[in-house]
């Protein structure tokens, strides 16, 4: 009885507070799956008074006196009219309009009805993204969209790598283009996921062609939230949770280590009573929290949305943290029915303390790494005892990992303003003119301080060793970039009988400027208040600076034509000019065409009952990539190549060389792509799906083509358009949604992408070597004709020699002993060319980091007030190079527990694991492991508290939830993670990866 009583009380309150007017509120859900529908227009019939539903499908509206009827409308749903009567709460369920499917999606410089689209696009809603406690929307998108591979390190503050439909270049310019409210960018770590309405991904060349030379790696268009017509709405969301390392590698303990070293070297290493687990020493369970508060409201004439967000992510590595504060203000004003303008603006401030990548620098500026040291440090050395560190380097050539962290303080602070403003004029009902200016200003200030410490007994338990920093060092760097983009477009939309025509034309101009300044001094005291260059010794000053600038100018046009809503045609052309290319290659056209046929709307299909939707589409498009260094075609002088005339004590004389060969004919990488797809909906549209085939070919991919050493070039390679690379694949998407009864509804969606990457030609050039990881390993990847970009290319192990005699008997056909220094327990490698020596010519291909397939499964269940969701993501067929294991260079380095127990011994004649050894093994398929994995990316359970019981607190919605990110991973790889971001020719090598983290968090969503 209680809720009912409360309800009447509330009704009474409402009645007296607004005499004559009354408030009606409720929730709009979808009849199909019971999910709330945000953005539904709720209008008092016959008036302009109205509002829209919020993210949770809720609305609240003041009903003027004498009015009694509400219209609920939303694209793709059948409009419903409700007579309010005496009700004050109206919960309704809208049915999908299977006839029209009028959902509108953003397609670049405009919107289009989803049913009219002839290219390959996908949309992920903000509500789906915000569910995951991760930093960027990109990461939250993982596993949601076919054809889009997201590779994330999980490190605080890091941006994940994104590859849409495979790798189409051998250079690093593979980042997809992000368009945030019209501003073009390649990094969205400044965007608060809570601000996002949706992300539209333009996957194929025909849909990305409107972005021309920016579209080669796909385009992701992000639209941020606007206020909506209605009274003030306040939303507060948070989550607080804990992160921990998942999938740690088990290292040998003191006893196991001692046994292994004894077996490898013949003499027992020193021992102690310590048994340090170095990963435990440097890792921790870390708190993370995020808070968002948004205020929005609007009238017929203007709307606003204000959002502040705060995210605090303490990394799982000791002393690491990332904090981000974001603010957004989006305003829109309608001056007349013909004129409106608006502003979207955001500010983000982030502080990254001891970011994992940043502390990989030792006192000498060499790349060491905390993780690498933790992997190698001997377990019998103490980590820290009474403030003094265990001296790992006195025993072996490895720094104490904890000291690595504690004696460096590296802080990277970024301020970023990003925004755009637009003016839209509709002089005629069929004509829209739109002008918008976007800008993005970034300022990054980095400061690294290396403490001074000696290898004596004030720092260490025992003195000695290599780990010391005799002089403190302070280095600072300031990067500043600014870019603006100015778009002017006109859109003509006309309907003649059954002909629908939309024509878009326009221009865009873009300019970018960057400058960087860095300086350092030594001997700066340890007090953080003194960490300014002027405090340091001026005799140790160094400084450097660099700059960059480029511009682009483009003309674009797009025609959308549909006949009778059944036959569809899209034609796009963009003409792009870039300052980064030489005059004669400066301008390039990017055309695309797409056709579609909605069979299910044909009269002959009306009799059948199988398909509610059946659509065929096909497209061709051409896009480009100009992500090359600005000076790629201009011969420049390499300065500061000095020589020490006048003796070693006076400063050397500055010199120069012209040591870079440039290709003066360099041009854009051009991608051509064919795309065909079938879309369908069956069983009352409960099952919908899409099957897509694409064939993408980069004809003149830029590669660093090796050139003869006799032609002077400092790195012996020249950037030129020489490679032909293809990506062919199939994407399958299936969605099932059903409502069992009023209380229970659910949906399942699954997507899978199969991609095959292949280098077709290098135009006579040498294969491109990559993955140079040092030690005895050399280069472990090769990019050559007939293989995927960045394929692992190493020796093949045939097994392990069981006896010394067996090694001596391993000879070539000419009788030459192939591995003259090998003995029992060593690997036997295949001598492919039978020349009696094992060298680089015996290398073979062992797959690549690129998965054969990747997939996502997403499940959602709503039962009464409970909601449950789960998403799974996985990769199949990708390989990982276990680089950290491969660069074991000393007999005193620690080993993995598995290596202790599985190793070859005269008794256990393993053919997969070598006998105890001192490292420096040759690069072979021993280190190539399967990278296939499947992971429960996210698991969320939520409960919505009945709103009636909260009315007295003015709360309209209240949901509590628990969520877990990366709860469980099934993988074959023995290392930390097979998700390893990196350059296209150096990917999939685990050297010192940040382990995947597991997050468990709780949160609330409150609406006022």
């Amino acid at each position: 009885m209680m809720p009912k009583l409360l309800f009447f009380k509330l009704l009474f309150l409402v009645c007296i507070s607004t005499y004559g007017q009354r408030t009606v509120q409720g929730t709009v859900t979808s009849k199909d799956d019971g999910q709330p529908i945000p953005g539904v227009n709720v209008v008092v019939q016959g008036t302009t008074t109205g509002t829209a539903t919020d993210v949770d499908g809720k609305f609240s509206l003041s009903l003027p006196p004498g009015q009694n009827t509400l219209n609920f409308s939303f694209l793709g749903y059948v409009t419903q009219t409700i007579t309010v009567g005496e009700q004050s709460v109206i919960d309704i369920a809208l049915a999908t309009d299977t006839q029209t499917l009028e959902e509108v999606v953003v397609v670049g410089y405009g919107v289009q009805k989803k049913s009219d689209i002839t290219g390959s696009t996908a949309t992920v809603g903000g509500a789906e993204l915000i569910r995951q406690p991760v930093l960027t929307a990109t990461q939250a998108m993982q596993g949601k969209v076919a054809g889009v591979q997201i590779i994330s390190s999980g490190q605080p503050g890091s941006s994940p790598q994104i590859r849409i439909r495979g790798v189409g270049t051998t250079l690093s310019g593979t980042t997809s283009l992000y368009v945030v409210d019209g501003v073009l960018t390649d990094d969205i770590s400044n965007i608060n996921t809570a601000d996002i309405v949706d992300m539209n991904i333009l996957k194929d060349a025909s849909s990305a062609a409107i972005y021309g030379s920016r579209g080669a790696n796909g385009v992701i268009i992000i639209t941020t939230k606007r206020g909506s017509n209605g009274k003030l709405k306040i939303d507060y969301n948070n989550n607080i949770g804990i992160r921990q390392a998942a999938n740690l590698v088990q290292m040998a303990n003191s006893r196991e280590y001692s046994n292994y070293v004894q077996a490898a070297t013949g003499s027992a290493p020193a021992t102690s009573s310590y048994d340090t687990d170095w990963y435990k020493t440097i890792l921790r369970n870390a708190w993370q929290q995020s808070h968002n508060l948004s205020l929005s409201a609007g009238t017929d004439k203007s709307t606003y949305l204000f959002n502040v967000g705060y995210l605090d992510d303490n990394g799982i590595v000791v002393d690491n943290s990332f904090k981000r504060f974001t603010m957004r203000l989006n305003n829109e004003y309608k001056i007349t029915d013909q004129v409106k303008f608006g502003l979207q603006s955001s500010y983000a401030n982030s502080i990254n303390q001891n970011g994992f990548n940043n502390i990989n620098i030792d006192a000498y500026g060499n790349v060491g790494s905390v993780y690498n040291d933790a992997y190698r440090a001997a377990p019998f050395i103490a980590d820290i005892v009474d403030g003094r560190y265990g001296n790992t380097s006195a025993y072996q050539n490895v720094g104490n990992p904890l000291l690595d962290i504690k004696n460096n303080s590296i802080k990277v602070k970024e301020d970023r303003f990003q925004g755009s403003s637009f003016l839209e004029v509709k002089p005629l009902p069929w004509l829209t003119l739109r002008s918008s200016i976007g800008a993005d200003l970034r300022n990054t200030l980095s400061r690294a301080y290396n403490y001074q410490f000696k290898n004596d007994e004030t720092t260490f338990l025992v003195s000695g060793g290599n780990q010391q920093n005799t002089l403190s060092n302070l280095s600072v760097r300031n990067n500043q970039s600014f870019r603006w983009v100015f778009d002017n477009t006109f859109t003509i939309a006309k309907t003649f009988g059954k002909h629908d025509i939309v024509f878009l034309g326009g221009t865009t101009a873009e300019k970018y400027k960057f400058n960087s300044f860095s300086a350092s001094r030594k001997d700066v005291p340890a007090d953080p208040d003194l960490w300014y260059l002027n405090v340091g010794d001026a005799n140790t000053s160094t400084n450097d600076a660099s700059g960059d600038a480029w511009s682009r100018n483009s003309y674009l046009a797009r025609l959308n034509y549909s006949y009778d809503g059944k036959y569809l045609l899209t034609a796009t052309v963009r003409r792009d000019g870039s300052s980064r290319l030489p005059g004669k290659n400066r301008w390039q056209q990017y055309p695309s065409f797409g056709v579609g046929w909605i069979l299910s709307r044909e009269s002959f299909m009306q009799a059948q009952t199988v398909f509610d939707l059946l659509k065929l589409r096909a497209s061709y498009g051409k896009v480009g990539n100009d992500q090359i260094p600005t000076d790629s075609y201009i011969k420049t002088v390499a300065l500061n190549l000095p020589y020490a005339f006048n003796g070693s004590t006076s400063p050397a004389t500055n010199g120069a060389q012209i040591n870079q060969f440039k290709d003066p004919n360099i041009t854009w990488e051009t991608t051509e792509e064919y795309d065909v797809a079938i879309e369908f909906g069956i069983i009352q549209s409960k099952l919908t799906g899409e099957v897509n085939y694409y064939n993408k070919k980069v004809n003149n991919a830029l590669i660093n083509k090796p050139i003869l050493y006799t032609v002077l070039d400092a790195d012996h390679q020249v950037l030129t358009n020489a490679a032909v690379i293809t990506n062919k694949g199939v994407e399958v998407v299936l969605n099932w949604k059903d409502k069992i009864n009023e209380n229970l509804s659910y949906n399942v969606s699954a997507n899978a992408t199969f991609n095959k990457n292949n280098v077709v030609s290098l135009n006579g050039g040498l294969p491109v070597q990559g993955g140079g990881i040092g030690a005895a390993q050399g280069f472990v990847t090769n990019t050559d004709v007939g293989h995927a970009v960045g394929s692992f290319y190493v020796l093949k192990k045939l097994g392990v020699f069981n006896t010394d005699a067996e090694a001596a008997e391993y000879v070539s056909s000419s009788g030459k002993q192939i591995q003259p220094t090998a003995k029992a327990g060593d690997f036997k490698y295949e001598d492919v060319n039978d020349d009696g020596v094992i060298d680089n010519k015996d290398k073979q291909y062992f797959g690549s980091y690129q998965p054969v397939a990747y997939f996502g499964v997403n499940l959602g269940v709503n039962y009464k007030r409970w909601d449950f969701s789960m998403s799974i993501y996985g990769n199949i067929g990708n390989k990982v190079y276990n680089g950290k294991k491969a660069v074991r260079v000393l007999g005193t380095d620690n080993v993995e527990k598995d290596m202790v127990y599985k190793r070859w011994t005269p008794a256990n004649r393993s053919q997969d694991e070598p006998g105890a050894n001192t490292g420096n093994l040759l690069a072979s398929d021993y280190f190539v492991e399967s990278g296939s994995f499947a992971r429960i990316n996210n698991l969320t359970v939520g409960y919505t508290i009945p709103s009636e019981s909260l009315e007295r607190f003015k709360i309209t919605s209240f949901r509590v939830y628990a969520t877990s990110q990366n709860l469980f991973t099934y993988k074959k790889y023995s290392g930390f993670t097979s998700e390893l971001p990196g350059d296209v020719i150096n990917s999939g090598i685990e050297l010192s990866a940040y382990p995947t983290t597991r997050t468990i968090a709780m949160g609330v969503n409150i609406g006022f």
Partner: protein
Amino acid sequence: MKKLTFILTSLFVIITLGIITSSCSESFLDIKVQGGETIDADPNLATKLVTGVYNSLTQGDCFGNGDVHGWAFTSLTCTISDDADKGSTPSDQAVPIGDIDNFTLTSTNKFCETIWGGHFNGIGAANQALNALSSSTTIDAAQLKEYQAEVRFIRGYLYFNMVRMFGAVPLVLRVPADLEDAANDPAYSTRVDASIVYDSIARDLQFAIDHLPIKAQAVTGHVTKGAAQAMLAKVYMYRGDWPKVQALTDAVIASGQYSLVSDYATIWRQAGDNNDESIFEIQTGNFNNANLKIDNYIVSQGPRSGGKGGWDDLGYGFNTPTTSLINAYEPNDLRKAATILFIDNSGTHKGTVLWDGRRIPSSDSVQNLYYNYKAYTSMTKETFKIVADKDRPKNVRILRYAEVLLMNAEASLHTGSGDATAQVNKIRTRAGLPSKASVTIDDVWKERRLEFAMEHDRFWDLVRQGRAAQVMQAAGKKFVAGTHELLPVPNSQIILSGGKISQNFGYN
């Protein structure tokens, strides 16, 4: 309200048309490279390019793009010989250095590749500089000749190293206009006979002799007439043209610019930089408040922690002197203790106290028993910009007056004129050894070995003397006569040339 719409519409059209017309003028897209100096921007470029040629002598990127005097150089000139072992731990750098030490090296050996690359980098830089000098209008004629002479000296020296190590090599004496030019000109992708390369070297060095100042008139570190004469003498020695060797070494001796310093041990210390004995040495020092060094030269040869460890070691412990070298010294030869850093293996744990007072622990804490003392730098008695840097600068001595004397002696034995015994005895006296009444070729060769031990000469000297196979095989190396007198041509270059660059005999 209609007025507003009209105004805004007109404004839109005007702005859009404005953009189209202004960007069509192309100036919007004409953005110069920011902070990248182009060739025409610097009037002093030619002079800087000359310094840049010297800079190429300091290349030490042995695992990357090029090495001239770094770790690849020490490996292919010392470790390869019977004077030095690979050092460090047995498995450390078994590829590529173990393969060099044992003559199991193949055409994919990284050090052979980077030494080829580094030398051609320097040769290319020299050609660039000569090109710029020939069109320079700002430099006066005499200075111009001197610059050209310096550059040609370095080009000649680099080719001398190349021809000794690889035999026939591509002879590149000009800058290609573009890649097509380089592809069409066979010079870039054809090895020419060693004799043609030697002729080119002789022309370059003769030009240097003709236009360089003597040491007294030259700024420290610049090459001199004496350096060119001594270098050309060495070139002729490899050609067996003894009268020319004798004439050139006589000229250097007669110039009065050089003399033996009294204390052999001090030659490789900072105090010995560019001393009276120095004829040509690669300069190091400081630049931009940092050390200016040849990467890896010092750190690769520094004594390495091993066994019990527990000390801040000096380097990676490579290129360690052999017992064969140690046993070659006569009793009381002062050069032995100046060349070899002996690790205390007496069991008394006294360690080794070095010339600057630094103590190196005894053998239970050190990886190897012997190290190259000529590659030791002192943190306390020498000055460096960054002392903590383990890879500290050290000038690499390429030509010393002692070599002029020994070349002169060897020539005398061939020509019959001059006094070989007197020259050899000058060297022996300084080494604290008794004078000899007369000397043979073998005496000169032995003196060369000990005088220039660990100075990048031994292996190529043995090849010159025609007894490399004999000596290497005696030292237990898998040396194959007729093959291992030369290094393998890098496989990558053969492939890149489409097979036009050939391989040396016996390698594949």
